[in-house]
C-alpha cells in the first residue's frame, strides 16, 4: 500500500521538479512501511537534510491529496532498505555459522580472484612478489610488517590479497582481514560514536593477518594513527602478520607520525615499479584468458606500447576493445584495435573554429586566407573555399548563415551548394578524397 502511495507521489513530483532535482533528491529515497506508516530512507545525512528542507512539505501535501485526505505519519531517516539489510545479514550469519563449523574460512573482504597464480611477474615486481610469497607461506615470521609501495595501479592490492588467500589456503580457519585505511578510520569513528571501542580493538587485534591498503590516507588523521599504532604493536608482539601498502616510501608520507614511519620499516619494505613492455603484454594476455576472448599477440603488443602508465589503464583499454568487438561481432585484429582505441589515445575534444579551418585549408592549398573571403571564382580558389565551407559545416555547430558570413558574406545556400559539391567530388575524384582525409587529420588531431 505504502509503495503504491509513494509511487503516485513520485509521479507527481516528477512532473513538478526538474529532471535533475528529481534524480538527485527524490529517486535515491527508498520507501518502506513501518506499522502502517510511511518511512522514507535517505542514503546519508546530507540528502536527508536537503529533502527535509526543500521537499518534505510538498511530499506531505501530495500524500495527503493522493490518500484522500488521510495523512499517514511520514518519517525520514538515514538507512538502507530492508531488502539489502536482510541480504547482508544473511550473508554475515551464514559466514559466522559456517565459520564455526569450519566449512568456510573467515573471509574478511578478501577477493578470491587476486591470487599468486593470477599475478603476472616481471622485473618490475619481482622482489615484491617473492617477499609476498614468503610471507604467505610463513605469516608472522618471514617479514613483519611487509610494506609494499609504488604508484597507482601497479598491483600492490593484488599482491596483498594473494598473500591473504595463500594464508587461508594453508590454514583455512585463519582470520585474515583486508581493508582500506579509510574503512579503518570510518569503523573507528563509528565505534567511538557507539561506544564500542573495546569491540573494535578486540576485532583488529584478534586476527592472524591484517592487510591494510593505501596507508597514505591516514595522513593528518591523528586519532586514527594513534589507534592504528596500538593495533600494529599488539599484532607484531603477538607474531600476527601485518601487510601495508602505500603510494610512496613510508618516510615520504606527509602528515604521518614519525614513530609510525620508523616502525613501518621494521620488517621489509619493497617497491613495485611500473611494468615493462613484456610484462604489460603478459598482463593483457592473462586478462584476455580471464575474459575468455582471443587476443592476438600483435594486438597485445600494440595496446601495451600505447598504454604505459599502469595496469588499470591497460585493463581499461582491453575492456574497451573487447566491448567493441562483442558489440560489432568482429574478431579482434590489429586494425580493429587501432580504431577502437582511437579515443583513448586522443586526449581532448579539439575545438575546431572556422578561422582555424580557413587557415589550415589555405596553407594546405598554398593560397591566402583572404582568397577564401574574396569573390574570385577561379578553380584554384573556389575549390579550397568549398572544402573550407564543407569542414565548417561538418566540424563546427555554427549556423549556415554564420558560416556564410565568415566566407565574405555569402548566402547560406552557397554553403549548402559547396558542401554538396565536395560530397560529389569525394566519390568521383580520388585526389579530392585524399585531400579531405589529410585535412581532417590535421584539423582533428
Amino acid at each position, binding site marked *: 500500500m505504502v509503495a503504491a502511495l509513494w509511487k503516485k507521489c513520485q509521479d507527481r513530483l516528477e512532473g513538478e521538479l526538474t529532471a535533475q532535482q528529481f*534524480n538527485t533528491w527524490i529517486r535515491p529515497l527508498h520507501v518502506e512501511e513501518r506499522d502502517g506508516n510511511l518511512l522514507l530512507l535517505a542514503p*546519508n545525512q546530507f540528502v536527508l537534510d536537503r529533502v527535509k528542507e526543500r521537499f518534505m512539505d510538498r511530499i506531505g501535501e501530495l500524500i495527503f491529496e493522493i490518500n484522500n485526505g488521510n495523512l499517514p505519519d511520514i518519517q525520514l531517516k538515514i538507512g538502507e*532498505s530492508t531488502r539489502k539489510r536482510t541480504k547482508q545479514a544473511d550473508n554475515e550469519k551464514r559466514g559466522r555459522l559456517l565459520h564455526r563449523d569450519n566449512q568456510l574460512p573467515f573471509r574478511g573482504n578478501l577477493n578470491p580472484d587476486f591470487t599468486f597464480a593470477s599475478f603476472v611477474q616481471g622485473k618490475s615486481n619481482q622482489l615484491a612478489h617473492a617477499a609476498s610469497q614468503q610471507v604467505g607461506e610463513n605469516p608472522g615470521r618471514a617479514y613483519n610488517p611487509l610494506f609494499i609501495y609504488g604508484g597507482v595501479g601497479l598491483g600492490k592490492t593484488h599482491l596483498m590479497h594473494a598473500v591473504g588467500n595463500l594464508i587461508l589456503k594453508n590454514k583455512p580457519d585463519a582470520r585474515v582481514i583486508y581493508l*582500506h585505511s579509510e574503512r579503518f578510520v570510518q569503523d573507528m569513528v563509528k565505534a567511538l560514536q557507539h561506544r564500542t571501542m573495546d569491540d573494535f580493538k578486540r576485532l583488529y587485534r584478534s586476527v592472524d593477518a591484517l592487510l591494510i591498503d593505501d596507508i597514505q590516507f591516514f595522513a593528518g588523521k591523528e586519532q586514527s594513527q594513534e589507534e592504528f599504532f596500538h593495533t600494529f604493536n599488539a599484532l607484531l608482539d603477538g607474531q600476527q602478520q601485518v601487510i601495508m601498502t602505500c603510494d610512496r616510501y613510508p618516510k615520504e608520507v606527509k602528515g604521518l607520525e614519525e614513530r609510525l614511519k620508523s616502525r613501518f620499516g621494521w620488517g621489509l619494505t619493497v617497491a613495485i615499479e611500473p611494468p615493462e613492455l613484456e610484462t604489460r603484454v603478459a598482463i593483457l594476455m592473462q586478462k584476455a584468458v580471464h575474459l575468455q576472448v582471443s587476443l592476438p599477440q600483435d594486438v597485445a603488443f600494440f595496446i601495451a606500447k600505447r598504454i604505459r602508465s599502469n595496469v*588499470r589503464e591497460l*585493463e581499461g583499454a582491453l575492456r574497451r576493445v573487447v566491448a567493441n568487438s562483442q558489440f560489432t561481432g568482429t574478431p579482434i585484429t590489429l586494425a580493429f584495435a587501432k580504431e577502437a582505441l582511437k*579515443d583513448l589515445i*586522443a*586526449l*581532448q575534444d579539439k575545438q575546431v573554429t572556422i578561422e582555424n579551418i580557413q587557415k589550415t585549408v589555405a596553407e594546405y592549398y598554398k593560397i591566402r586566407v583572404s582568397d577564401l573571403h574574396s569573390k574570385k571564382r577561379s578553380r584554384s580558389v573556389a575549390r579550397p573555399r568549398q572544402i573550407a565551407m564543407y569542414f565548417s559545416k561538418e566540424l563546427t555547430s555554427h549556423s549556415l548563415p554564420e558560416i556564410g558570413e565568415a566566407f565574405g558574406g555569402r548566402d547560406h545556400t552557397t554553403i549548402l551548394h559547396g558542401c554538396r559539391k565536395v560530397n560529389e567530388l569525394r566519390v568521383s575524384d580520388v585526389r579530392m578524397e585524399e585531400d579531405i582525409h589529410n585535412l581532417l587529420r590535421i584539423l582533428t588531431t
Partner: protein
Amino acid sequence: MPCQLPLGIVLRDNATFSNYVPGQNEEVLHTVQQTLRSGGEQFVYLWGTAGNGKTHLLHAACHEVSIRGLSPVYLPLAQRHELAPQMLEGLEQLDLVCLDDIQCIAGDEAWEAALFHLYNRLRESGPPLLVAGDAITGALGLRLPDLVSRLSWGVVYHLQPLDDDAKRQALQLRARCRGVEMPEDVAAYLLRRSPRDLPALFELLDRLDYASLAAQRKLTIPFVRQFL
C-alpha cells in the same frame, strides 16, 4: 486580438533510452544499458563536449533503474557548491550511481578523495557507476592519481556529436514528446538557419513551442520564418 497566454505548465522532457538518438554512439548506448543488467560492466566513463548526450544517458539510466522499483541517484557536480562531499556517503547502498560533469570537482581535494572512497566502496558492494566528463580521464585535471586510474579501469567512451540528419531526427523526436508535430521541412529549415548544437536547437524548440501555443498556429516554415 490579444494573443492567448499558454498555461504555465511545461511538459518535462523526460530523458529515457527510447527518446535518445544515438547517431554514431550506438555502442555506448548498448554498453550503458548492459551496465544496468547483471553481467555488464560495473564502471563506465563517458566523455565529450557539451551537447553530445552525456546527461541524457545518465538521466535515462536513472529512469530505467527506477521503473524496476530500484533506487538510483544522479549527482550534477557542476552544482558542487550546492552539494558537498558528504553527499557521497552511503551511496553504495543504492542501485545505481551517476556522476555528471566530473571535471567540475577536479583539483578539489575533499571531493576527489570522497569520490575515490566511493569508488572503492562501490567495487566492494557491486552497484554500477556511470561517470561523465568533458575530457578523457587523464586530461580532467584531477590531482589524485588513484582516482584517475580507477576511472580508467572501466570502459571509457568518447561520445561523438550527431551529424545534421541525426540532429534533425532528435529535434523532431523532442518536439513529438512535447506533443508538437515538427514537419521534416521545418526541422531542415531550422538546421539551415540556426546554430546547430543540440542545446541551442532544443532551446529554440522551447521558444517555438511556446510561441506556437500562444499564436495557436502549427509549426510551419512561414510561422518559423516570422518567429526567427
